[in-house]
Each structure stands twice: as C-alpha cells, then as structure tokens.
C-alpha cells in the first residue's frame, strides 16, 4: 500500500467514524432547521457527500459537524429554489409523505414552534442545544460573534417559551 493509498484509507476511516458518531445529531439539527423530515434527509445526505469529498480540509474546521449542518441548510435552500423552478416547468406536486424515523417521544407542537422562529435564532438554538456546539464553535460556524450567539439564543428561548406556553404546554 503506497503512502497516498494509506492516507486515503486513514481519512476514510476517520470520516466513517465521524459519520457514524454524528449523523443522528446532525440530522436532528437539520430537521429542526428546515422543518421537513424528507427535505432534511436529502439535504443531510448531500452534505455528507460533500463533507467526504473535502474531508481532509474539513478536519481542521472548528466544527465539522457544524459545517455539515450549515451546508445541509444551504443545500436545502438551493434545492427549494430549484424545486420552485422545476414545479413551474414539470408541474410536479411536492407533497412530502409522513416521516417514518420519529419515535413517540417527539413533540410535534414544539417542532412547529421552533420552525416559526426567525432563521438565525433557529440556527443558533439548534446548533447550541441539539448539535451541542459551544458558543465559540457556533459563532465560527455561523460567522457571527459569540455575543450575537448568546443574544440570538436568549431571544429564541424567550420567544419559544411564550409561544409554547400559549399553546397550552406548561413546562414549569
């Protein structure tokens, strides 16, 4: 085995470790960000493909899992732009079927409320709470300051509590 092949094999192993360890957490993050299960599934898969293609450089990123999640969100946004054009051209009806990988403990009302948060607040919320990045990693991944991360998170939680309480869920 030459040195390049050996490097490729090592890189592959590390990527696979990363993928298996992070896939659920990243998928939850993307799902909470984009709102729709199947859109999240497609975007996450594509983001993992891209992560693998540039895994060598991605390993030095402050948060590879944050990179995959934000890439998936961008893929989702791009694909929706294309989907709108596609719908006009091909007249395909987009109607996602019911999700199948969600267990009983999932709170649909909470998910719906999170989906209504402004995108930046939602991103910070899911990166900090679901992806479990720290403030610095979140700031680096989203390209904002650590102070802004704290402010967005606080606004998101405050808004969420108000709206969620309005829906009759008393968390206290």
């Amino acid at each position, binding site marked *: 085995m030459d040195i390049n092949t050996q490097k490729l094999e090592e890189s592959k192993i590390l990527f696979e470790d990363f993928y298996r360890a992070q896939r659920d957490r990243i998928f939850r993050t993307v799902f909470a960000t984009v709102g729709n299960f199947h859109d999240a599934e497609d975007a996450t*898969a594509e983001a993992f493909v891209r992560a693998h293609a540039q895994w060598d450089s991605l390993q030095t990123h402050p948060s590879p899992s944050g990179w995959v999640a934000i890439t998936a969100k961008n893929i989702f946004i791009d694909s929706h732009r294309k989907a709108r054009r596609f719908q006009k051209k091909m007249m395909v*009806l987009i109607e996602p079927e019911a999700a199948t990988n969600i267990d009983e403990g999932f709170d649909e009302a909470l998910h719906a409320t999170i989906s209504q948060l402004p995108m930046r607040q939602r991103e910070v919320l899911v990166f900090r709470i679901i992806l479990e990045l720290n403030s610095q990693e979140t700031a680096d991944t989203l390209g904002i300051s650590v102070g802004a991360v704290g402010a967005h998170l606080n606004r998101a939680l405050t808004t969420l509590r108000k709206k969620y309480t309005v829906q009759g869920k008393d968390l206290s």
Partner: protein
Amino acid sequence: MTQHNNQNSNREAHDDLISAIQQSYSAVTYPQNPRSSKDFVVVKPISKNRAGFRVSFALAASFVVIATVVFSALPGSETAWAATPKTVSSEESERFREVCEAATHSENDEEALAPINLTPPTLVDYRGDMALSIFTQEGQNAICVTRVEGDKLSVESLTVMSGGQESMPGVVAESSVERVNGDSISYVSGFAPKGTTRVTFSLTDGTEVTASLKDGFYVAWYPSDKRIDPQSVSFQ
C-alpha cells in the same frame, strides 16, 4: 464578564425548555437505507466529474405509488438491453405516450387503475427492445415500461404515483419497477448538475452505461440482476 454571567443565568432560566427540546429531538434518528446494510455509501472522490453517490430510493420513495399494473407478456420473449440509449424522435415519443395512455383505458384489464391522460413524456430511455418513459404532470407522475417489437409496442407495466419531490442534483437514485412474470427492471434517475451534457456510470460487471438526458433530467434502465457501481457515476 457581566454579559457572560447574564447569558449563563438566562440559559439556566430555560433549562426546562432546553431539556424538553433535547428530549423531543432525541426521538428522531437519521433514516437507515432500506436496501443496503450501509445507510451511506462512502465513495472516493475520483475526479471533479465523479458524483457522490448514495444508494437510495430517493425518487421512488418520495412519491406515493397509487397503482402499478403489470400487463400480459409476449410469450417466450427475452429482454434485449444495450448500454447506449437510442435516440427517440418526437413521433416515437408520442407513440410511447399514446400506448401508455391507452393502457390505462383498457377495458380488458381487470387491474384497478383509473384512466389518465398523459402529457408528452418528460424523458424516454429507449435501449434494446424496451423503453422506460417518465411522465411528470400535475398531481400525478407515471413510469411506463414498453416493449418494442418491430412496429408493435406493448406496455409491460405502468406505475402511477402522486406527490413526491426531486432528488438532489448529483445524487443518484436507484429504483426498480415491476414488469412481466414477477420480474423487474432497475433504473437510475435524477437531476444532473447544471451544464451536464453526458451522464455515464458502470454496472458491477464493468459495463459502461450512458443515460438518456434531457433538460437536466436523466434516466437509464438496466436488467435487475445487475447493480450499479456507486463509484462510477460521472456527470460530464
């Protein structure tokens, strides 16, 4: 420091809410691929033209199949297949549309399939003696498999689907559709990256296949006893 302390106390004030969010989303897991023991096939990037690949039912799974009707087979007929598709003229395309539409209006068939009116096919992949036509139109989508023998066209199966969504450009979806005698054919379909003029891939037996491509949408069928080599997909 004061700002940091405020952030911490704000977060603590929401501990119950944070727990509720984490608990709720822990019920969500990344879908496992129903066809493969690997839910994500890692491929080595061979060149910029090589596509990432994941074995999936992305196209078919995102549609709801309303009905599949498998029609009668021509006795003793073997399926011929070719690695390169034939060029389909607009007249031939119209003939495929007509025969597929007529199949849904057949009074002799006992299968329950409401008659539908088909618009011209989005794409026809005609190779060997079989053509796989894909129709996409409002509210319904159809995949029609037609056998060609000389001037005679006979529909082998027709699958009508509702809803669904496209797969990502560059991500290849492998699906299959039933045909006669409980057999099936496999096909790949999807959207090519912008500027693509040729889509090729290899089967595991080494055969290089050229897909039919039109307006960024591609499709290629192949016998179901063959599998696609996931490392070989190339958008040129």
